């Protein structure tokens, strides 16, 4: 923890620097002291120096591959991309009405959502500090809107607490703060903190606890109009001669602790989930489409890579066209940037050293499942005043996420009816048929929203271990595996370098894919202009 004195000393230093040398020096000083810099992203890539006609073959037209293509072509390289799917974007993917896809095992789903409704089966939110991704969105003209991570009026739900009734996030958060504050105020007043906290600070602490925890004048957390301003009312304030507002009853500390709903509060506290978060207007794939507008002419679609060879003169990649797989085709280049997920790359013969091969083989891919459900009306808004955000539950569906757009409209709406990431339930949902997944999402979801059964129309269910182009959601690094293999995975091996979220410290985030790609092409370019 930073002591207040240290902060003040730094601030004094900054104002001194600012006054004497101007804001540029000030910014430099702040950056070097670790304040202003929040991201490894250093602004648009500048690849200086002549690649002298060098060619690059990029494997995969996801965000990592298309970032590399965009920047390398701009720098003067001859670029081509091989992509397994018949579209660009990879995991940057949106499902809308009319879209169909076939999962491994052969189940075909056709999305029946109404016009304008969608789900993002893969990434769905962008933290404000993912500066590289946000910069590409700005440069490529991708419009953003807020993604609501914390909605105080959404629910926290524990199937064996509160008689199974979902609780408002607002109330649980207020009660947890209030009950903890009351407890801490009590021990403070009993003198039990005398050794740890000075008398003067204890007075300030009591004030802070009353303010933060909504305590009354006796430092108790009670049902009153003060705590109601935090947790909500039993009867809302009205106008004119309407009945006066009534406070609501807090949940006891014991009930709160035993419900374990407190564990969801970190979903709003962690760096990657703090406000402001964003989503592209119209679906996450707006980003992939914007990239494809720039580099789509370089992409060969339906190309399934079968072998990656290199020697001291170049790289040769064998592939088949998935619409005519009997003929093996070849693509050649001086260099190769391979963004193929390791779940797949580990099955493809590739000429790399034993340490990179061991790294490729070491990373398992996370199970994840998302289920989109269309309902006849936006009952979560109409009946429950839930506008965007996420409800968390200990039921196997784990989350219900509400659309962060189209608020307060009549007509149909689509919920994310389940989002499972890692853990036993993700495997169990993957093992089901799409119809069974949707049925289970409905059954569990109706324990939180009883309107489900009346209002449901159709759904789609994506289980990432059954997605043909990834065989899993994202690289699932262990700390041990990362310590042993990560650097070997990211090194340039001869003429081949890997990129993607799996080659980043931000696994499963699009920012990780882009930062990995920028880092890889920066190192590759340095090597090219030197030779």
């Amino acid at each position, binding site marked *: 923890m930073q002591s207040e004195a240290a902060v003040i000393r730094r601030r004094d230093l900054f104002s001194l620097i600012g006054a004497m040398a101007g804001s540029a020096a000030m910014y430099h000083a702040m950056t070097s002291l670790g304040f202003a810099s929040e991201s490894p992203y250093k602004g648009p890539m500048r690849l200086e120096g002549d690649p002298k006609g060098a060619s690059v073959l990029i494997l995969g037209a996801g965000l990592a591959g298309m970032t590399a293509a965009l920047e390398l072509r701009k720098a003067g390289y001859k670029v081509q991309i091989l992509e*397994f799917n018949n579209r660009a974007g990879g995991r940057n993917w949106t499902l809308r009405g009319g879209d169909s896809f076939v999962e*491994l*095992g*052969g*189940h075909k*789903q056709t999305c*029946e959502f109404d016009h304008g409704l969608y789900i993002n089966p893969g990434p769905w939110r962008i933290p404000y500090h993912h500066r590289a991704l946000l910069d590409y969105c700005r440069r490529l003209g991708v419009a953003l809107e807020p993604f609501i991570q914390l909605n105080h009026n959404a629910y926290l739900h524990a*199937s*064996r607490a509160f008689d199974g009734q979902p609780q408002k996030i607002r109330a649980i958060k207020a009660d947890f703060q209030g009950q903890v504050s009351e407890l801490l105020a009590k021990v403070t007043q009993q003198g039990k903190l005398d050794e740890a906290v000075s008398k003067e600070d204890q007075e300030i602490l009591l004030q802070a606890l009353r303010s933060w925890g909504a305590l009354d004048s006796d430092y108790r957390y009670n049902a009153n109009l003060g705590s109601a301003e935090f947790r909500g009312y039993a009867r809302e304030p009205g106008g004119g001669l309407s009945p006066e507002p009534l406070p609501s009853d807090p949940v006891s500390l014991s009930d709160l602790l035993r419900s374990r709903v407190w564990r969801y509060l970190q979903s709003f506290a962690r760096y990657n989930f703090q406000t402001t978060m964003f989503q592209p207007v119209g679906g996450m794939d707006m980003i992939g489409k914007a990239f494809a507008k720039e580099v789509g002419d370089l992409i060969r679609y339906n190309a*399934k*890579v079968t072998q990656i060879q290199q020697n001291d003169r170049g790289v040769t990649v064998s592939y088949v066209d998935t619409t005519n797989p009997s003929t093996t085709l070849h693509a050649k280049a001086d260099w190769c940037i391979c963004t*193929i997920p*390791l*779940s*797949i790359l*580990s*099955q*493809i013969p590739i000429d790399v050293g034993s340490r990179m091969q061991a790294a490729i*083989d070491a990373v*398992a*891919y996370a*199970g994840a499942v998302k289920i989109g459900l269309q309902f006849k009306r936006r009952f979560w808004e109409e009946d429950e005043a839930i506008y965007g955000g996420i409800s968390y539950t*200990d*039921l*196997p569906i784990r989350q219900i996420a509400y659309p962060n757009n189209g608020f307060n409209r009549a007509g149909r709406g689509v919920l994310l009816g389940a989002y499972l990431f890692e*853990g*036993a*339930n993700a*495997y*169990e*949902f*993957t*093992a*089901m*048929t*799409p*119809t*069974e997944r*949707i*049925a*289970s999402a*409905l*059954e*569990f979801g109706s324990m939180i929203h009883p309107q489900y*059964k009346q209002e*449901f*129309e*159709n*759904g789609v269910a994506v*289980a990432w*271990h*059954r*997605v*043909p*182009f*990834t*065989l*899993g959601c994202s690289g*699932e690094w262990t700390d041990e595996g990362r310590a042993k293999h990560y650097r070997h995975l990211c090194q340039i091996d001869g003429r081949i370098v890997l990129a993607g979220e799996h080659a980043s410290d931000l696994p499963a985030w699009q920012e990780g894919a882009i930062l990995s790609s920028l880092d890889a092409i920066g190192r590759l370019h340095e090597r090219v202009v030197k030779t």
Partner: protein
Amino acid sequence: MQTRLIAQKAGAVLIALLPAATGFAQDNIATRPTFSSGYRFVEMTGEEIFANVCQGCHMPDASGAAGAGAYPSLIANRNLATSSYAVHLVVNGRRGMPAFGDMMTDGQVAAVVNYLRTHFGNSYTDAVTATEVREARR
């Protein structure tokens, strides 16, 4: 177990709610999925573990699947001849195969390996014990 109670509610009744358009010919409506309540699996028998975990990738008939990469078929699979290899793969994973060592007990690993080695055209009768799995974890 409490998780089983939840599981039984999500059964055949619910399927009836779905419009016909989303139906799939291969669906087995009689199959009722099990749901675990935490990180670890609650399924205990080999059959149950296969149906709720393994078949997600290896498919209900164990025939595997192929996309940009592949999940191997486990039908009459000679790699199952040596039980220690199968135990090692389930516990530690390899390439696309996740490690399940932290999510399953020794008994669960033994159960699913024994199930695989005696079904889907495999007939290896030397059953693995939980003790052998414990040894393999070291």
